[in-house]
C-alpha cells in the first residue's frame, strides 16, 4: 500500500499532463482511459514523484509518455517483469502497468500470469481492443473466432482467451472489467485499484476506431448498455437492466437471469456480490457470463503481497544473523593466515 500521507488535494489533472502531444487516432478509447487516469491521480493522495508508469509496446503502451510522473516505455510484453523490479526495489512507489491484449497475453503471457500469481502490489491496466493496433490490425489472443483481420482475411480460427478467466486462473486477487466509454467508472476503478494491496488488474473494453471499430458496441453502446451489462458492486445484489428488474440467481450450479416480479421472484432471491470472497468459483462464473456481461470489480480478495512476505522473511533473517557488513561474511568461517 502506498503512502496516503498528507498529500492534500493540491493536484489537478493538469499536473499529470506531460508536455508530449498525444498521438492516438482521434476517437480512440485510449484518450478516455488517459483522461480518467489523469483525473483519478489527484484523488489517490499520492505524490507525483512516487508514481511510476511502465508499459510494453503497442498503441496502449504509449500511455506513460503522456503522464507527468516517472515512466518507462519498454519492450513488447515485459512490462509486468520490469514493473516488478521497480516495486521490489522500492515498495513505497505506486507502480502502474499499461498494456494491450497482445502485449499482455501473447508475447508477455508468461510475465502476466506470474505477476498475478505472486501478488506484487502493482496495478495493471489492460487495454483490450481485441486487435493488434500498433502493427495495424492483426488478430490478437482476444480476437473472436471468425473475426476478419489483416492476418485472418478469411476469419480468425484461433479461439480467444477470456482475460478475466485467465487472470483468475493465475491467482489474481483483484480483477475488474470496465467499459471504455465510461470515464467516471474507469476513474473510480483506478482509485480502488490503487488502494488495493496486491496486483490489481483492470480490463478496459477499449474500442479501436481504426481496426476493430464497434467490437463492443453490442454491449456498450448507450442504448443497450444498461440491458446488456451488469455493473457489480461488492455487497450489493446482482441487478441490472434499464428498469433494474433483471437479476442473477444460481440454478443448478449455473448463473441464470431472472426477472424480479415474475414467477414469484423478489429482490431477496437475487445473489449478493461478494468480491472479497477467497474462493474464486463465483467470480469465475461471473467473468464467463456472456449475458449480461459483467463489469465492475468482480474480485477483490485481500491477501499478503509478495513484498510483505519478503519483508517478513528479511526481518527474521536479520534478527537471527550475525552479519551486518560484508566483511563479517568474508572473514567468517574457515579462514587462515599466511605470514
Amino acid at each position, binding site marked *: 500500500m502506498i503512502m496516503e500521507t498528507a498529500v492534500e488535494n493540491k493536484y489537478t489533472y493538469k499536473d499529470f499532463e506531460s508536455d508530449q502531444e498525444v498521438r492516438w487516432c482521434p476517437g480512440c478509447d485510449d484518450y478516455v482511459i488517459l483522461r480518467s487516469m489523469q483525473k483519478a491521480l489527484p484523488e489517490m493522495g499520492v505524490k507525483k514523484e512516487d508514481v511510476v508508469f511502465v508499459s510494453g509496446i503497442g498503441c496502449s503502451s504509449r500511455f506513460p509518455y503522456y503522464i507527468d510522473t516517472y515512466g518507462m516505455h519498454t519492450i513488447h510484453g515485459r512490462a509486468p517483469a520490469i514493473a516488478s523490479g521497480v516495486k521490489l526495489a522500492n515498495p513505497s512507489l505506486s507502480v502502474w502497468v499499461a498494456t494491450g491484449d497482445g502485449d499482455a497475453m501473447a508475447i508477455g503471457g508468461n510475465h502476466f500470469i506470474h505477476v498475478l500469481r505472486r501478488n506484487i502490489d502493482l496495478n495493471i491496466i489492460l487495454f483490450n481492443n481485441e486487435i493488434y493496433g500498433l502493427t495495424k490490425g492483426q488478430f490478437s489472443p482476444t480476437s473472436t473466432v471468425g473475426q476478419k483481420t489483416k492476418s485472418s482475411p478469411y476469419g480468425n480460427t484461433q479461439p480467444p482467451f477470456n482475460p478475466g478467466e485467465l487472470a483468475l486462473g493465475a491467482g489474481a486477487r483483484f480483477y475488474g472489467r470496465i467499459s471504455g466509454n465510461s470515464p467516471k467508472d474507469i476513474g473510480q476503478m483506478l482509485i480502488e485499484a490503487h488502494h488495493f494491496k496486491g496486483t490489481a488488474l483492470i480490463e478496459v473494453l477499449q474500442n479501436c476506431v481504426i481496426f476493430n471499430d464497434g467490437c463492443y458496441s453490442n454491449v456498450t453502446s448507450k442504448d443497450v448498455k444498461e440491458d446488456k451489462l451488469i455493473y457489480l458492486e461488492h455487497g450489493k445484489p446482482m441487478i441490472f437492466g434499464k428498469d433494474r428488474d433483471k437479476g442473477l440467481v444460481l440454478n443448478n450450479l449455473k448463473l441464470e437471469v431472472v426477472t424480479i416480479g415474475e414467477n414469484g421472484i423478489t429482490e431477496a432471491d437475487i445473489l449478493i456480490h461478494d468480491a472479497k470472497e477467497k474462493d474464486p468459483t463465483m467470480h469465475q462464473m461471473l467473468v464467463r457470463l456472456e449475458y449480461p456481461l459483467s463489469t465492475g470489480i468482480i474480485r477483490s480478495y485481500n491477501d499478503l503481497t509478495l513484498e510483505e512476505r519478503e519483508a517478513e522473511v528479511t526481518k527474521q533473517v536479520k534478527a537471527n544473523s550475525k552479519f551486518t*557488513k*560484508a566483511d563479517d561474511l568474508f572473514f567468517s568461517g574457515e579462514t587462515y593466515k599466511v605470514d
Partner: protein
Amino acid sequence: MIVEKSNLQSEALETVVIRFVGDSGDGMQLTGTQFTDTSAMFGNDIATFPNYPSEIRAPQGSLFGVSGFQVHIGSVEVSTPGDNLDLLVAMNPASLKTNLYALKPGHTIIVDTDAFNRKNLEKAQYKTNPLEDDTLNNYRVVKVDMTSLTKEALKDIEGLDNKTITRSKNMFALGMVYWMYGRTTEHTIDFFKKKFRKEPHLIDVNTKVLKAGYHFAETLEFIPNAYSVSPAKMPSGTYRVIMGNTATAWGFLAAAEKSGLELFLGSYPITPATDILHELVKHKHFGVKAFQAEDEIAGISSAIGAAFAGDLAITTTSGPGLALKGEALGLAIMMELPIVVVNVQRGGPSTGLPTKTEQSDLFQAMYGRNGESPAIVIAASTPANCFDFAFQAAKLALEHMTPVILLTDGYIANGSAPWKIQSIEDLPEIKNNLVKEGDDNWSPYIRNEQTLARNWAIPGTTGLEHRIGGLEKDSITGNVSHAPENHEIMTKVRAEKVKRVQDVIPEIKTEFATTGDLLVVGWGGTYGSLHSAVKQMNHEGYKNIGLAHFNYINPLPKNIGDLLTKFKKIVVCELNNGQFVNILRMHFTGIEFLQYNKIQGLPFGNSELMEAFKKLIK
C-alpha cells in the same frame, strides 16, 4: 591388499595433482572439496576442477555417470588444476576406465577392490578385470577392499543400513590420502560436526570411517608417506578457499556496500550460473533482494526496473539465458541504465554441454543484439578474481551508466582457489550518477562531460519526473525523436561512452617477456593454463615467449597496438573456434594472428599448449 613394497623415499614435491573419481553417488565432490580445504589451511596454493555428469542421478556404475574432482596442491604458485595426475583414487571400474589416461606412468592408483565385481565391470565395458590383467602394469596399484573395511569400521554402531555404510566409504579413501600427504583429519571432523548437526549419528559414522582410512594407511606402511608438499609462499594476509561463483556473488555484495546502494538480483536457474543465485539469496541480512523470476527475460527485465528505481541491479545466467536477454539488454543500452549481466559460459550452441566449460559466448556478448548496441564486456580469469571483476563490473556500470557484461565460465566458476580476503575499506570508491535536483532545463540526458554518463534521477525524487524508453530519444530533451541526425548523434554517443571506458581501465602488461619470438594471447578463464604453460617454458629456458592475457574486451586496453608489434609471432588461444582472435584482427589489420583452439568442453592442458608453442618458435 597387495602392494609391492616401494623403495620410494619420502619425496618433497613442489606440486601434486590428485583426482578423486567414482560414481555420481560416491561423494567425490565432497571428498575433493575436503581435501582442498584442508590443504589450503595447511598453506598450500591450490586449484581445483570438478567434473561431473549433467544427469543428476545417472545410472549407477555407468561410464557416463562418473563424477570426478581434481585438485592441484603446491608449495609454489599453482595456476591450473594440472593435467597429469600423480594420484588417482578410483572408487569403481567405470571411473578407472574413464580416468586412467590422465595418470602419469609409474604413479599411484588407489582402488576399492570391492567395487570391481562382475556387474560393475560389465557396466564399465571391461571384458576382464583390470586389477587382474595387464591394464595397470605401468602403475603402482594400491588395492584396498574399502567397502568391507568401512563396514568393519562401523560394526559397533547399531542400526545402520547398508546405504549409510557404503555411502561413507569415500571418507575411508579421504583418510588414506590425508595420511599420505601428511595432512590431519581435524578440519574434516569439524566439518562433519557442522554439516550433520541435525543427524549426530552421521558425525560419528563419518569420523570413524575417516579415521579408519587414515590409520589403515598409517599401519600398513606399504604406502610410503612420500609426498610432502610444504606450504606455498603467498603474500601475507587472511585467506579462505573460494569458488569462482561465490567470489562473483561476493564481489557484488562488496560493490553494493561500497556504493551505498541496495543489491537487486533478477535471475532464472541455469547451470553453471545457478550457484551465484544460491549464494545471493542467503544474504537478506545485507538487504539483498534476490528475485527468482519466471524466465531469463523476466530476470533481466526486473533488474532493469530495479536499476530505474535506484538499485545496483544485476542478472546472472549462462549462454542460452544470455540469448533470451538480448532484447532487454538492448533496452538497457537505449535507456542507459546501469545493470550487470553475468554470463557463466558453458559449451554451446543450444543446450550444448551444460556442465562443461567453453569461451564461445564472446561474440554473443559483443554483438548478440539488434541495432548498434555496444556494451562494456569484461572477463574474469581465475576463481578468486571473479570477485574483483564482479566488483569492477558494478563500478563501471554505475559510473558510466550503461550495461556491463561480465563473462566467466564453468571452469573458473566451479573451480576454487585461495582468496586473499579483501576488506571493503581496501576497495576502490564507487561513484554514481544519481541526481537529487535539477533546474527547469533539466533532462535525464544531461551527461557527465568526461564519461558521457547520463543523469540518474530515480522515482521518489521531487521535480525530476521523466519518461524514458526503448524509442530513440532526443539527445538534449530526452523526448522521443525520430529525427535522422539525432539518431546518428545518439548512436555515436552510446558508442563513445563505452569507448571512453578505456580511460579508466588498466593498460595490459605482458608477462615473462616484453619482446621476443612468440606472444601468447588469451582472455578470461584460460589464464591459469596459459600462465602455467608459458611459465614452465620460461623455466626450461625459453626466454623469448611472452603472455598477454585480457580481462577487458570491450573496450580493449589502449596500449595493445604497441605491445603486439614487439613479437615475431602472435598466437591467440581460446576454448572456442576463434572469436577473440577475430576481434583483434578487426582492430589490428596489419598484424598476423595465429590461433590455438580447443572445443572439447575441457580446459587447456599444459603439455598440449607447450607442444604447440614450441612448434611455433622452432
